[in-house]
């Protein structure tokens, strides 16, 4: 029996179906206990069997298996390097889009065209419309006519 090789084979074959977590840990622990109890029940009084009769020793052995299994998983599935933090681009108000800093950044991104585009978006959001009010029209409004 080559336990390490077996575990490697198991990981290789079963990896896609294995989901680590509390349930999986418990299942592995129970399986380990079942195998040990079976060995003891079979009445093979070897040194390992004697040692494994105590519950503390059982737990320690199970922990060793779990740690080994965990190390294998980590070794075979190294954690993905952490993505560089993306600074969140928050939704800005039209006024904020027209600040010096915001326009500076637009220029950095794409020159004068980007500045034009950003300003255009800001004014569209403001729904900036031309005022056609002449003096006559304003007077009419003021007089309520």
């Amino acid at each position, binding site marked *: 029996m080559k336990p390490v090789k077996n575990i490697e084979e198991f990981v290789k074959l079963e990896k896609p179906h294995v989901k680590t977590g509390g349930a999986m840990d418990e299942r592995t622990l129970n399986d380990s206990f079942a195998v040990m109890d079976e060995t003891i029940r079979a009445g093979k009084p070897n040194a390992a069997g004697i040692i494994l009769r105590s519950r503390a020793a059982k737990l320690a052995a199970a922990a060793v298996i779990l740690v080994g299994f965990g190390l294998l998983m980590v070794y075979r599935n190294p954690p993905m390097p952490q993505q560089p933090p993306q600074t969140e681009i*928050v939704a800005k108000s039209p006024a904020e889009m027209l600040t*010096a800093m915001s326009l500076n950044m637009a220029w950095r991104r794409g020159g004068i065209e980007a500045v034009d585009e950003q300003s255009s978006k800001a004014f569209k959001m403001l729904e900036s419309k031309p005022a056609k009010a002449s003096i006559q029209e304003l007077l009419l409004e003021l007089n309520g006519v």
Partner: protein
Amino acid sequence: MKTVNNKSLILTCLSVILLTSVSPTIAYPPDNAAVLYYKAFLILQEPSVDVKKMMTDLRYGMIKPNDEIRQYLQDNRHAIEFAETAAGVRDCDWGYDISKGFDVMLPELSKIRMTAFLLTAKAQTLAEEGDYKAALGKCLTIHRMARHLGDRMLISYLVGNSLNGLANNRIGEILSGMPDDDETLVWLKNQLYEITSRANTLKAAMNSEREVAFQQIRKENIGTILDSLGDGTDGMSKDDIEKIRNGDEEFFRASREYYSNYVTSVQLALDLPYPQSHQQLKALSEKAEKQAADNPAAILSAALWPAVTRICTLDVKAGTHFNALKTAIDVYIARAKTGRLPETLPAGLPRDLFSGKDFEYEKTRDGFILRCQGKDLDKDEIFQYDFKVTK
């Protein structure tokens, strides 16, 4: 005799009283051009999608002025009139509150660009109708508007530069289609020299930007800085952001000091001839980025400053374009006087700022070319300016 003197005195006093009390109420235009620009912006009509596209095509020489464009210009005639009057006023104060740092609002930048597009379209329609001097006048108005944008903010300066480029492109086109007219050419030359003698400078813009940055790089403005950098934090790590977020008073003081020294170094580099200046600015920029890894005080300078080499190149390009136009006008004047293009460039003309040398002059089948002898080191490109002559 005494009565006459008394009468004169009374008349003089009355005149003075009348003048001082009445003139302010009828003074037009106002001392501040911005007042008139804002009026123009208020009545400026947005073009429809179709007209906007036509205006763009017209600017790029893909179409000629058509009825829709003429109608759009007619609808905006009052806005154009306000802008032209504003451009003739000496001073322009946009009312920036510099204490707000980079939060200062600049809505006028977009509107002034739009007004400049109107003016270039107007210039093209006037040239099409054969009124070349009026067409050139519209382009000069754009140059004056660019000066009015000022050098209080770096971005205003850059937008002003783009307006200059827009106007200079149109002037080149108008000159290419204009019959020989010595008088108009001399007038244009004098106007261009006068405009460039009072032009904004990149160094002044950098000084102003430093002043604004000093207001911004403070602990109490940290949120604004991080929000703003959210637009373009290329290369800014989580660690850097944390360092800024957790920065104490000393961090911000050191950051301001680093920023100030950085700007001074950039300004000194700008005094060098373009190739050396570009090389030095590139080195400075790389140094700031590298230092940001070890020296927290460098982080904000590296993040807040746009690519200085590009800014320098654009500035040199703008100056070179002006110089090419001045040189071309002298060539056109020589042709107006002799009836043919000169074989070589007249002496003592403005130079190509990329190389610091005279422009290369080449006569072509339908005009002439002024070619730079140095290249844009960012784009690895040599600029040349094509001018045509009428038969």
